[in-house]
C-alpha cells in the first residue's frame, strides 16, 4: 500500500488516487510534420523502467488535483513529489527525466512551437 503525500491534502492511502502513467509526455503541436513512426512514440510508446519512474497521479477521492511523482518501481519508494507542469528537483528524479528516451524523440521536439520569424 503506497502512502502518497498529496501536495494539497497530505498523506493518504493509494486507494484515494488514480495513476496517470508516465509523466512529461508532451503532445506534438497540431501543425506537426511527424511520420506515423514518430507520432506513435507519443501516442503509444512508453517509458517502463525497472527503477526510478516519473509518473503523474490524481487525487481522485480528494482534491482531484494532479501532481507528478518520482517512484522506484522495484522498492516503490517515493523519491519526490512535484507540481504538475514542473520537472523533478532531486538528483534521482532529474537523472530519470534526462535519461528518458522521450527527451530525444521527434515527437517531443514537435511539441514546442517553432520560433516565429518576422519577415
Amino acid at each position, binding site marked *: *500500500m*503506497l502512502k502518497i503525500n498529496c501536495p494539497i491534502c497530505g498523506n493518504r492511502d*493509494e*486507494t484515494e488516487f*488514480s*495513476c496517470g*502513467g508516465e509523466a512529461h509526455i508532451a503532445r506534438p503541436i497540431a501543425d506537426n510534420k511527424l511520420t*506515423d*513512426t514518430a*507520432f*506513435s*512514440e507519443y*501516442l*503509444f*510508446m*512508453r*517509458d*517502463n*523502467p*525497472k527503477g526510478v*519512474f516519473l*509518473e503523474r497521479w490524481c487525487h481522485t477521492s480528494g482534491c482531484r488535483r494532479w501532481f507528478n511523482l518520482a*517512484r522506484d*518501481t*522495484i*522498492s*516503490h519508494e517515493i523519491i519526490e513529489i512535484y507540481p504538475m507542469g514542473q520537472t523533478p528537483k532531486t538528483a534521482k528524479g532529474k537523472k530519470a527525466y534526462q535519461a528518458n*528516451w522521450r527527451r530525444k524523440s521527434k515527437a517531443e521536439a514537435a511539441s514546442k512551437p517553432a520560433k516565429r520569424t518576422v519577415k
Partner: protein
Amino acid sequence: MANTDLDRGSRALTQKSKRYSIFSLARNAASYHQNWQQAWRHADPKPAYDAVIIGGGGHGLASAYYLASIHGMTNIAVIEKGWLGGGNTGRNTTIIRSNYMWDESAGIYEHALKLWERLSQDLNFNVMFSQRGVLTITHSEHELKGMSRRVHAIRLNGIDSDILTPAEIKKRVPTINISPDIRYPVMGGFLQKRGGTARHDAVAWGYARAADDLGVDIIQNCEVTGLRRNGGQITGIETSKGFIKTPKVGCVVAGHSSVLADMANIRLPIASRPLQALVSEPIKPILDTVIMSNAVHMYISQSDKGEMVLGAGVDKYNSYAQTGSWPVPEHMVAAAVDLFPFLSRLRMLRQWGGIVDTCPDASPIISKTDIKGLYFNCGWGTGGFKSTPGSGHVFADLIAHDRPNSIALPYSLKRFETGYLIDEHGAAGVAH
C-alpha cells in the same frame, strides 16, 4: 501449420531413452526411484549459437523446443536470469481458453488451444491439461448483449462457445449464488467447454525437458546485460556469464521486455504491472469449472490439490516487485464471496504477484524489429499462460524464417504506427 511438423517434433523425443512410460515407472520403482535421469542439463554457455532465446519461461522454452523440433535448429540456447519458469509462468492462475473476440485473436489463441490438446503427448510429460470448461458470467443487460456479440464472433471462427441461462449455470456450478438479490446478480454466461486449466510449472518443465533432449542448452542464473549490434544486425548478447555470439535473438521476457528493449534502443508500448493471485487452503472437490466475471472482477478455479485459485485485475501502477498491493485482493475476495458464499469460511493461504507486460490494446507483440535478427515476443499482459504453446510455435517460425506467419503477422509492433490495434480488453477479462 501441418500436424506432421508437430508429430515429427514429438517423435524426436520418443527416440530418446529418457521417455516416461508405464515401463520406465515400473523399472524405476524397482530401483527405489534412485535412477531417474535429470530432466534437463544445467548447461554452461557455449561461445556461439545459431539462435538464443532470452527468457526461460513457458513461452521462451516453447519457442526453443519448436525451433529445435520443427525447424531443426538445435544449436540454440535459452538464457534465463533466474530459475526456469520462475517468472509469470509459475505465478499465473492457469486458465486456458480461446474465446476472444477478433479474428486475429481467434487465430493465435485457438492455435494454442489445439496445441494444448496434444501437448502432454508431444512432450511426453503430463502437463495436467484439464478441459473442465471456462464459464464467463454476465451481470447486466449491457453485458448480455456484449456476450451475445462475442459468442457469435467466436462461433463464426469455428470455436466452441455456448450461452447458458442462470439456471443452467446453477446446474453446472451448484455452489454459485444466482439469487437476484446480490449486488451483481448473475444474468447469464457463456461457456467454452474445451477451455480449462493446466499445471503451469509442468508446462515449463515439459518444454525444458523436451528441448534439452534435442540438444538445446538451458542456461539459468545468467542475466543479459547488453545486446550487441553491428550496424543494423544483432551480433550477440552480453551476459553475466560472458559474451555469446549469435545472429538471432528472441526476447521472451514478459514484464522485463522494456529492460531488454532499452538495451537495443527499441521502443515498446508496454507498461509492467503487478498481477496478483491467491490460493485458499485445500478442500475437497467443490468446483469443477473455471468461472470468470468481468463485472465483479474475479476468476476462480479449484486446483488438483484442492485449493481455490483466485485472481483479479492488475494493480494500477507500474511495478517490478512481484507483490502487488492489498486493496486489489481485498476487493476481489469481497466480490467472490458474494458469488460463492462458501468462500467466506476459507482461509487464504498464499498471495503473490507477477510482472505483466500490458499493451494498449491488450493484445501481444510477436514481431521483428528494426534490428535484423532481433525479435520480440511480449505484451501478453494478463493473458500469456493460455497461449504458451501457440506463442512458442509461431515465434519459433518467425525466428527460423525471419518472417511472421499469418497467425503472428497482425501482432507486429508496427500496428502501433498503422493504428491497426486488436482491442481485446473485454475478452482479456482482466482490468488493465
